[in-house]
């Protein structure tokens, strides 16, 4: 089966600091991949590169068969990638449903003129978008809060809304940046169910960054370990759990020696 996301040899440096190098990954449709590593290993940098928030100094990304080099973030989103943010970035003072409707921007096609003159196409597409948004929120049990300001939601619901908003752009690949951060164990196990459900219902591949090992080991089919911008290990959860290099990267033995010879 062809990969929906094919990243080859990706690298970026920030003013001399090689934040990421030789990053290769192929993600198949409906796969759940974990991206782990100590703080500062370059995990969020990978997400920023995949969504073209940063542009790589070398290497390339192919998303659903299309090269994303040099494209703007919003164009890459259209190709089929969406993300959530480590520090939640909702449109806080807008209603929950408007957060979703904004992400439906590209699924509507009425023009500026049609909007300003309120032609039938406007009404049709707006009504459809509203209906779709409510249904989507319903899938995540958020229909009741659709008209509340997003910023007023409890923390866990805000994280969930970020996932809903990302899904509204109709992605093939979904990037989750620390989805379980700040959650207690029962919330985390609920989240695991949600993530699996998303994969099955929306048929997306998911890459997630997470520090909570119970979640990573519990749902990821494949795990990639980053340290100092380099992949030091990848494989199934069991392989990773017992990999001495990974243990070393996390526990910090022999700090300073290069961990990339394997």
């Amino acid at each position, binding site marked *: 089966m062809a990969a929906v996301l094919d990243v080859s040899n990706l690298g970026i440096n920030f003013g001399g600091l090689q934040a990421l190098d030789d990053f290769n990954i192929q993600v198949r449709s409906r796969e759940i991949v974990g991206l782990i590593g100590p703080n500062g290993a370059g995990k969020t940098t990978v997400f920023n590169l995949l969504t073209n928030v940063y542009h790589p100094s070398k290497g390339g990304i192919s998303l659903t068969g299309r090269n994303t080099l040099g494209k703007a973030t919003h164009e890459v989103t259209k190709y089929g990638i969406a993300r959530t943010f480590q520090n939640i970035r909702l449109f806080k003072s807008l209603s929950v449903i408007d957060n979703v409707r*904004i992400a439906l921007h590209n699924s509507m096609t009425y023009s500026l003129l049609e*909007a300003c003159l*309120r032609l039938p196409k406007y009404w049709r597409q707006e009504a459809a978008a509203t209906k779709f948004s409510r249904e989507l929120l319903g899938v995540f049990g958020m229909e009741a809060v659709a008209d509340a300001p997003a910023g007023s939601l409890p923390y866990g619901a805000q994280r969930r809304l970020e996932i809903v908003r990302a899904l509204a752009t109709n992605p093939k690949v979904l990037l989750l940046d620390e989805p379980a951060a700040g959650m207690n164990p029962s919330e985390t196990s609920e989240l695991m169910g949600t993530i699996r459900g998303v994969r099955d219902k929306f048929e997306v591949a998911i890459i997630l960054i997470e520090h909570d090992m119970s979640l990573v080991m519990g749902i990821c089919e494949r795990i990639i370990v980053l340290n100092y911008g380099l992949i030091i290990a990848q494989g199934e959860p069991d392989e990773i759990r017992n990999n001495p290099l990974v243990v070393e990267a996390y526990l910090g033995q022999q700090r300073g020696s290069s961990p990339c010879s394997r």
Partner: protein
Amino acid sequence: MSALFKSNPFRYSLNAVSVAGLYAVIMFLIETGVLNRYQALMLIPIGFNIILAVSLNLTAGFLGQLPLGHAGFMSVGGYAAALFSMSASLPTNVELPLALAVGWIVAAAFGLVIGLPALRLKGDYLAIITLGFGEIIRVIILNLKFTGGAYGLKGIGRQTTVTWVYICVVITLFIIGALIKSRHGRAIISIREDEIAAEASGIPTTYYKALAFTVSAGFAGVAGGLYAHYLSIMDPSSFGFMRSAEILVIVVLGGLGSIFGSVVSAIALTILPEALRGFSDYRMVIYSLLLVAVMIFKPSGLCGRYEFSLGDTIDGLCSRIRGALSGKGGGGDGGGS
């Protein structure tokens, strides 16, 4: 939702009736002399202040970027419209709308040309660069031959009437209101909320910033055109930073991100100084005190964007319907979407 959808024709006719009704009321008051000549003339500055405030609100309130050169766009549109009508000799009812269209287009073009580079910056820097552009526009107009230099333009036809101002206000409110409530408007608002998240949600942020800037500048140009054909003179010194600041006061007081607020505030702040004519020396002192006090005590402004603009009712449409249903309460601002 389908019930609301079905009620569209109802809402349209309700709006059309209230727009026409308000116009009839105003005309009746003028004809019967309830509004004296002087008060009737007040309606015109109220009109272009509404247009200026609502158009500035598009960028300052909805896009969340503060341009400080709005008066610059007003002057560009005013000069363009005036030069057009002075060189053309058409019947009034054709000439003025054409001149205003020219004002819109020229000011919008300036907005786009200035906006594209300026919008690479954010926040304070954007405010400053637009202020810089505003000042440059003023200096250039002062030094050009065909704009009359420091003397400005004289003898522009006095064609601005209450009716034309009313039409322009209604069009402005309708277009900006409709824009804000569409996917395009939501895209503009999402940039204010979080530009990075907007971009990640598939919004072409640069396009929408430029769009908001262009449309905002265009309507400032229409206000400028009305102004030129009202006073029949254009004086470059009346479009400095002070003028931009006055418009900003109206918008901030009404509520950044509330079209309804801008309308109410424009009416209030145009009438107030005239009502307190004895205190005309204090006008700007009161304005500036108001501005500071509003920012400290109620930064959301009189109408606050939460009640009217954000959430689900951005253009105040629902509140107007509610007002009308509960006994013709809040129909005092004409127009709407």
